[in-house]
């Protein structure tokens, strides 16, 4: 059974979410603060984490950063805040997805399913691809830069594999949303922020990317 950790300070929302997620077939447990959530995640790691942004004590952004430090557990932000600023900050902190309250349980469930699919490594017997000093091995689920392994999240890895599979060709943000996130329509900021995070990890100079380049108005391309 998939375990979901819900970090939410509003007791009623937390309780309702836990009930609904259990009803959907998840094993769900909650935490009222970021500290409690982080402790639970250390003790018995969940498969997915849902985080609210406005939390007492450590806020949601910091909570995401600390969760991310330890592992690549898929994190979905569930917040009433919908400013571009908050969304981008949460994604940059390391969240994989962002939904605005109130979210229908069906939708939330669909997003969690999509995240799990992303986690599964696609083994298409694709040989390891090399882009300069960057080496992507889909089979091994590994990314190496100059021989050293790079820690990427599942979403970042899927994104990188998708781009590598179409190396030298442009993929639009919408294509990437569909292929990586599994959304027919969605927020393009998801793509932009993840590309930015990926660049921090794989580009020697993230401000002037050599491999993962932007084609204005078209999308992104991975090149040698």
């Amino acid at each position: 059974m998939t375990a979901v950790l819900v970090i939410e300070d509003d007791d009623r929302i937390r309780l309702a979410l836990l009930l609904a997620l259990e009803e959907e077939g998840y094993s769900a447990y909650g935490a009222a603060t970021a500290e409690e959530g982080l402790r639970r995640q250390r003790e018995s790691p969940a498969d997915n984490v849902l985080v609210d942004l406005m939390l007492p004590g450590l806020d949601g952004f910091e909570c995401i950063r600390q969760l991310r430090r330890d592992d690549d557990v898929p994190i979905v932000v569930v917040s009433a805040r919908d400013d571009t600023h908050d969304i981008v900050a949460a994604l940059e902190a390391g969240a994989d997805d962002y939904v605005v309250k109130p979210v229908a349980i069906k939708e939330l469930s669909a997003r969690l399913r999509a995240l799990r699919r992303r986690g599964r490594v696609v083994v298409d017997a694709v040989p390891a691809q090399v882009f300069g000093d960057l080496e992507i091995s889909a089979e091994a689920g590994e990314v190496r830069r100059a021989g050293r392994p790079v820690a990427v999240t599942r979403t970042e890895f899927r994104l990188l594999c998708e781009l590598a599979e179409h190396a030298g060709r442009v993929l639009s943000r919408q294509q990437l949303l569909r292929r990586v996130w599994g959304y027919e329509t969605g927020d393009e900021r998801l793509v932009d922020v993840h590309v930015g995070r990926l660049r921090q990890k794989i580009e020697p100079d993230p401000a002037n990317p050599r491999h993962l380049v932007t084609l204005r108005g078209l999308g992104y391309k991975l090149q040698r």
Partner: protein
Amino acid sequence: MTRLGLRARVTAAFAVGALLLAAVMALFSYDLTRRSLLDERERTAVRAAYYDAAVVRSGLDTGTPDVVAVLRSLDTGSSRRPLLHLRDGWYARTADVGAGSVPVELQRMVAAGQPAVQRVRVDGQPTLLVGVPLAGELGYYELTSLREVEETFQVIGLALTAVAIMVAGAGAALGWYATRHSVRPLTAVADAAERIAAGDFATRLDPTTDPDLTRLSTSFNHMVDQVVRRIERDRRFAADVSHELRSPLQTLAAAASVLTRRREHQDERTATAAGLVADEVARFQRLVDDLIQLARTEQPAHRDTVDVAGLARAACRERSLPESLVEVAEGTLARWRVDRRRVEQILLNLLDNAVRYGGGPVAVRLELRDGIGVLDVDDDGPGVPEADREVIFDRFVRGRAAHARAGTDGTGLGLALVAQHAAAHGGHAAVVDRDRGARFRVELPGAAG
């Protein structure tokens, strides 16, 4: 009667002022010139008359004077006509002058030995009459025509009138030019007001260095600040209210989904009630989403190159409709310069509208016409009556078709959002005529490149 504009009035005042000034100057100089010219003429005429009188006197002093010959011998040219009044009668070189030309009063004065000068009219001509007493006789007169002088006066008068008119014209031009400067701040205010009305709330007047205009610009800017603050407050209130509704709605949505899931464990009445709660929570959720969207539509469109055809197909998939509904007109590029999120919502809302009230969409057409992106969604429903075609885009207004179908789950904001998103692109949304069903058309200017 419509009042003249400020500029016209100032210009007229300048023109009248200039005309008055010029007229006074002209009259004064005319009078001065006329007087000095006449005086000069008179002195010359008097001198000539005295000289001629002396010649006549000496001519008469001969033994047997031939008066006519004496008069003929005078070198008077054509402008002076001599007239001799002897005891035995009047003598002249021509018949057109005679006793009748000299006023009786003047005759008496001259006969009494007093020289006299008078301006008279002879045969309708202005003439200067100089009378010189003649010793032993009644008098010698000379008529000097003033026609040339009068003509000169006419020319001068005409010239001065022309100058006065020109000065008045120059005054008017000056007034027009001067008011252009003084009206400029008003033009700036009008321009700024228009820009603000068009939605550019960042518009302010430049604080001028001119102390007379500082008050205008500061109070205008203050007013705009107040209005913008008020609009912003209203907008934020709507956004805040919607926002505050989100958290409790999340609890409701999650709880309702549990109720729906557990339908089989409930008795019939509980299940019906739970179904109602779940449906209404879903609608409430959409309503809050739409309200938040609406509060945000005031912001300008963020244009980007967007594959609108792909977006339309994705929207169809999202709503479980066949992609084949989407038709792209021949020769129309699929990529438009539009705001992706807004166009996406336009498409989704129009599809929802067609599904809810129009029996489902039958076509989604995209076409670029003269740079305007035209987006048509056709449905198979009863159409929209002429009377409803405008109001249907207002907030919380649903067409008659919508009312006819009780229990609809629309929010009444979908088409209002469509209209606002179109407006953010400088375009508009409308219902256009079609043989059957309704056609919702959205025009997005500036969509080409």
